[in-house]
């Protein structure tokens, strides 16, 4: 949409930012800004007014001040791997790419901390810490590409967060700027900071509260070794109960993942990991630590899995085999892309004890909506990633897929869970937020944003739906909200 108004606004913002940035750090030609039109959620696209790529903190502050003065929305962007549209540009806003903040400032091997700029990739931190026998624990599947700034924005998890926590638990402090361009810090180099724990709010705030340019993370000593059990079950319910059994036995596995039969078939065809194709469900259960510790834990885990009715168990004998066990799980998304033209990935969390109920509910939904669904779960923490398979070329399949997805989210909320475990709300789950939170709760969250960003310029319109939007959603709500359509076009 290139209306004369937009053109005038663009010219105005360009002339305000040009004196603040080197010429190559400001993009506004359509062919330059179009690569920024979406993040990992490609269903939503919007070309930004312009893209600023500052190289110094001073430039970030200056750009924010200028945008603040002109009341221009600012959308911060890292690697753009987010799955909920958190970095979707604003039509009349500046996309602030922090890609150039990719320097590891300092690794304190003795203190086991790293100070890194926000654009440093998650995996790059562990790589830089490796010579000291240390690593950064949270490991989202996209860790090869996603940045620590994005991880902070989304409070990213990964397959090891049951034992090692989320981003929140592994970040000591952040530095950056308010929407008005004032320098600000949350947390500290110590284990706590005075006043309210605002760091806990900023982590997971999806770029709505402040612009973070530097992060201090904790590093952990690398476990000496890890071993993984692959256990097959002839009934998903037994696998679900085995998960509860492992926890009840006082074990906290380093990773505890589940795949159902359609997913096993999809990934086995893709990576040939040697998965049991007859199994109705497979659990991957990992222990890490010293060799003595791992032996002890693996023994206890095996006992629980066998007692829970595993039909087959195999323990990784070396690192190559362990990585092979994981290769299927880690490739669940691309494998699904091979068996279906499109898939929609859900991300709700439910209490662990409801895993088997959820699988059954999803099976019923498959019939109801006439679409297939393959499931991977972070079973240890109840986080589900059902992948609904469909063909986006077929409008009716798309419609049924959206109903299917909304049904899963609402079933999760009814089971005492949440609509998003780790991918964030972004623009994708705005309507689902109306189901999970009351008007008073949403109003308080909007006020909370206002406390950090009184002008409402940071990533406006994301995460917390307005009362009007939820009212609209309520009207379209057939049978307690199965309709997930909104004014935002999808596909």
């Amino acid at each position: 949409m290139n209306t004369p108004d937009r053109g005038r606004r663009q010219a105005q913002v360009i002339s305000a930012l040009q004196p603040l940035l080197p010429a190559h750090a400001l993009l506004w030609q359509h062919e330059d800004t179009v690569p920024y039109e979406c993040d990992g959620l490609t269903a939503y696209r919007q070309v930004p007014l312009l893209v600023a790529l500052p190289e110094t903190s001073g430039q970030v502050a200056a750009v924010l001040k200028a945008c603040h003065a002109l009341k221009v929305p600012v959308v911060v962007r890292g690697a753009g791997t987010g799955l909920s549209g958190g970095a979707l540009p604003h039509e009349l806003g500046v996309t602030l790419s922090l890609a150039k903040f990719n320097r590891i400032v300092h690794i304190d091997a003795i203190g086991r901390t790293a100070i890194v700029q926000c654009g440093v990739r998650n995996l790059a931190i562990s790589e830089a810490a490796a010579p000291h026998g240390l690593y950064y624990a949270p490991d989202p599947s996209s860790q090869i590409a996603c940045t620590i700034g994005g991880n902070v924005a989304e409070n990213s998890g990964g397959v090891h967060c049951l034992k090692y926590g989320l981003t929140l638990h592994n970040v000591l402090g952040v530095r950056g700027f308010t929407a008005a361009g004032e320098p600000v810090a949350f947390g500290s180099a110590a284990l706590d900071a005075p006043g309210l724990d605002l760091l806990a709010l900023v982590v997971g705030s999806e770029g709505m509260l402040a612009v973070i340019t530097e992060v201090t993370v904790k590093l952990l000593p690398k476990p000496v070794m890890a071993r993984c059990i692959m256990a097959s079950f002839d009934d998903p319910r037994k696998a679900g109960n085995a998960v509860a059994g492992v926890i009840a036995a006082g074990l906290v596995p380093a990773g505890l993942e589940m795949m159902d039969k359609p997913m096993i078939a999809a990934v086995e065809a893709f990576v040939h990991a040697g998965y049991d194709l007859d199994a109705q469900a497979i659990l991957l259960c990992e222990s890490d630590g010293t060799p003595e510790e791992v032996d002890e834990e693996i023994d206890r885990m095996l006992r629980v899995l066998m007692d829970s009715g595993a039909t087959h168990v195999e323990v990784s004998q070396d690192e190559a085999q362990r990585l092979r066990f994981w290769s299927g799980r880690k490739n669940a998304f691309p494998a699904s892309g091979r068996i279906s033209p499109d898939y929609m990935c859900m991300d709700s969390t439910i209490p662990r004890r409801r895993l088997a109920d959820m699988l059954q509910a999803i099976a019923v939904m498959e019939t109801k909506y006439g679409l297939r669904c393959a499931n991977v779960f972070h079973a240890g923490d109840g986080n589900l990633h059902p992948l609904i398979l469909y063909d986006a070329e077929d409008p009716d399949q798309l419609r049924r897929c959206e109903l299917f997805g909304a049904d899963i989210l609402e079933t999760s909320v009814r089971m005492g869970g949440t609509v998003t475990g780790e991918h964030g709300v972004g623009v994708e789950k705005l309507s689902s937020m109306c189901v999970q939170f009351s008007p008073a709760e949403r109003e308080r969250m909007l006020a909370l944003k206002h406390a950090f960003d009184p002008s409402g310029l940071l990533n406006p319109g994301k995460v917390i739906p307005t009362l009007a939007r939820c009212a609209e959603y309520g009207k379209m709500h057939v049978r307690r909200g199965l309709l997930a359509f909104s004014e935002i076009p999808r596909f």
Partner: protein
Amino acid sequence: MNPNLARLIDQVRTAHQAHEPLEIRGGGTKAFYGEAPVGRVLDTRVHVGIVSYQPTELVATVSCGTPLAELEAALAQNNQGLAFEPPHFAEGGTVGGMVAAGLSGPSRATAGAVRDHVLGATLLDGRGELMQFGGEVMKNVAGYDVSRVLAGSLGTLGLLVDVSLKVLPVAPSTATLRFPFSESSALAHLNKWGGQPLPLNASAWWGDTLLVRLRGARAAVQTAVATFRNTGGELVEPAQASPFWEGLRNQTDQFFENAMVATARDTPLWRLSVPQTAPPIVLPGEQLIEWHGAQRWWSTPAPAAEVRRAAEGAGGHATLFRARAKSVDVFTPLTPPVMAIHRSLKQSFDPAGVFNPGRLYPGL
């Protein structure tokens, strides 16, 4: 609705209309902490009970007035517990008070703090509206993480009605070792060990003695004990070690007893929170170091400005933890933009300034 909770809501609504301050109070065991309480007492102990506890979910949801000891006993029956070892300063402390104070015990440096274990909360805000944030699941990024901010908020944002906490299995094995180390040697060793895959769980240094608690899988603890004995560590019998860690956790240990006596003579007790690697802090008085170097307790007659300078110089902050008269700010003053956020949050959650006014910062 439970009639006791309904009464609490009524009291808050009345106070809101009258702009009348309320002092949220559970067992009153932490009345000494923070700025001086003001207002009519709102006793949370009418709202009690474990709402739900599923050991296989590793989550307990508890009403605010529930005695902390009662929750811990229920968890212990299933061989689970609160990994952050919240202190009991006296009998009768409540779960709500534990979360609102946000204080964690000896295992904090390894196991995380109270806030790391808060999964969700039901909050009664200043208008008397009930709202829920977070939930009972480990992973939840729907909206802002309001429930965790309540940990350490000293009740300034609202009344914590119910809270969901992550609980963890009790580790199968524990051992304590004693080392005759000077302060700098203790700090150096703790930081070195911290970088190794050892089941280090808690540590305390006082009077040229370092005590280290190992906790984890049996095999891991056994191996570490052997390693530590080779570097001069002496195993402490459980019968002696357990009461020591309990005393440290609840601040009934000799160091804290001395510090209490000293506060009566106008020598306050300061809590310095600094990076674990901060070099020895030099002040007059007595010091006890916890959290592998990250928490340094000082019973010192030094002026507040000197203590705060020392903490800030080390990259941390200082809290006037116990004092006969609190003539300076209890908590380290905030930068203007951060204070502005505090004011605005307070304004939106508690517009009439009902809850614990001034308890965290004067005027807040």
